[in-house]
């Protein structure tokens, strides 16, 4: 056998695909997968939310509230009680044991956390002028519970964060970013959800207090500081002025009376939790909880 030296042109062992083209295909595929996941998450959350029992939600809420430095506030709870009493007898909200809490925070905001924890920031209480106004805020949050908006929002954020953790690991920057974006308690509801909660809140306020006084005060005051409408075109919250207008139209259409408001008591004005309970104290027992359930 004769050896003929010959240099072989070309290379069969290395693929010709450009690495950037491959990166494009792979990232594109990943984005597509994520998109499908996100869309299906939205659909499945909507289906699941209606079926999640309140007890499961309470469990979730306990894990969530553990991270927030909050105390049950007796004065706030007193405002909440007439609203709860005036709920229709068949309302699903009766299954919750609502706890109104105050958190030291300068923001004028309130949150509906899973499990019936209504959190009001002290900044809101410092600005509030009447009991009715705070009651309207509480009733609005009850509206979110009635429509289970808080779970809808958390559901998708929770799913995305879990997905990020599975893909990138628990300590990675990507998971951190995902949880920051999707799991923030201050994140917003959609305009429709807010408007629906406003309507629910107004009805409840009228049922509890007999008139619609103070219903628009909070949004009117926030509206003064909100400035231009342009940033609100894309925001999830409606502009406060629009909310005031919507509420006023509803009050006029239903013929609700608007009477004098009750001034806010000093105990709430300070915006500080008054309960003597230590923050980390657990409720005495399960029976204890059962009896205090509404």
């Amino acid at each position, binding site marked *: 056998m004769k*050896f003929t*030296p*010959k*240099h072989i042109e070309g*290379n069969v*062992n*290395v*693929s010709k*695909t450009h*690495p*950037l083209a*491959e*990166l494009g295909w*792979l*990232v594109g*595929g*990943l984005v597509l997968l994520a998109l499908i996941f996100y869309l299906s998450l939205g659909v499945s959350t909507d289906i699941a939310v209606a079926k999640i029992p309140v007890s499961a939600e309470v469990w979730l809420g306990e894990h969530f509230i553990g991270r927030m430095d909050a105390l049950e506030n007796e004065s706030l709870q007193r405002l909440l009680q007439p609203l709860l009493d005036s709920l229709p007898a068949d309302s699903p909200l009766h299954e919750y044991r609502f706890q109104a809490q105050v958190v030291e925070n300068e923001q004028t905001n309130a949150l509906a956390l899973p499990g019936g924890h209504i959190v009001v920031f002290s900044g809101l209480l410092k600005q509030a002028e009447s009991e009715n106004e705070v009651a309207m805020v509480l009733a609005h949050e009850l509206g979110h519970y009635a429509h289970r908006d808080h779970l809808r929002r958390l559901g998708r954020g929770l799913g995305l964060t879990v997905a990020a953790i599975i893909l990138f690991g628990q300590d*990675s*920057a*990507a998971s951190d*970013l995902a949880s920051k974006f999707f799991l923030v308690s201050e994140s917003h509801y959609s305009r429709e959800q807010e408007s629906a909660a406003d309507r629910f809140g107004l009805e409840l306020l009228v049922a509890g207090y007999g008139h619609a006084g103070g219903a628009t005060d909070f949004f009117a005051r926030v509206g003064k500081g909100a400035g231009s409408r342009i940033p609100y075109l894309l925001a999830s919250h409606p502009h406060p002025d629009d909310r005031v207008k919507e509420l006023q139209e509803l009050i006029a259409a239903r013929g609700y009376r608007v009477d004098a408001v009750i001034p806010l008591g000093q105990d709430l004005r300070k915006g500080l939790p008054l309960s003597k309970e230590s923050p980390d104290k657990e409720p005495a027992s399960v029976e204890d909880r059962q009896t205090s359930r509404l």
Partner: protein
Amino acid sequence: MLETIFRYPDLSLFLALMVIGYSCGTIAEKRHYKSIIKREQELVELMVVNAEGRFAEGAVRTSFLVNGSTVVSNDYFKRLLAILRNIFGGRVKVYESLIDRARREAILRMKEEARTRGAHMIVNLRLETSTIGRSANKKKSIGSIETLAYGTAVVMNRP
């Protein structure tokens, strides 16, 4: 811009490593292939076979072991593509060139050694491949591939 970099040092580092990995990796690979092809053409006359050598009595003056070894490093860009490939499956095309370069470079080094020692051919060529820094790979580090080529260099009794 600067604020974003400091806010997410991990992500910034990741992107920087990607860009460095791609640009430097591509330049290094192009230069390496250029040199491989040039040297392969120079050494094309030196025969290398992986068959066992059988020679007539008295044909071989001497024989000795020659070997060539090379280590080629992975880069972050290739690693990212490989990770993405792990999700979808299929050929990890970016790693093919790593293996190919390491193998050809190792054979070239072996041939260079054989030529300097005056060999006429290399028989019984064997190739071994191993990874270096495999366990380091798990700690967000990067691994390398080592290829070892070895064979028996033969010096013939030629006039």
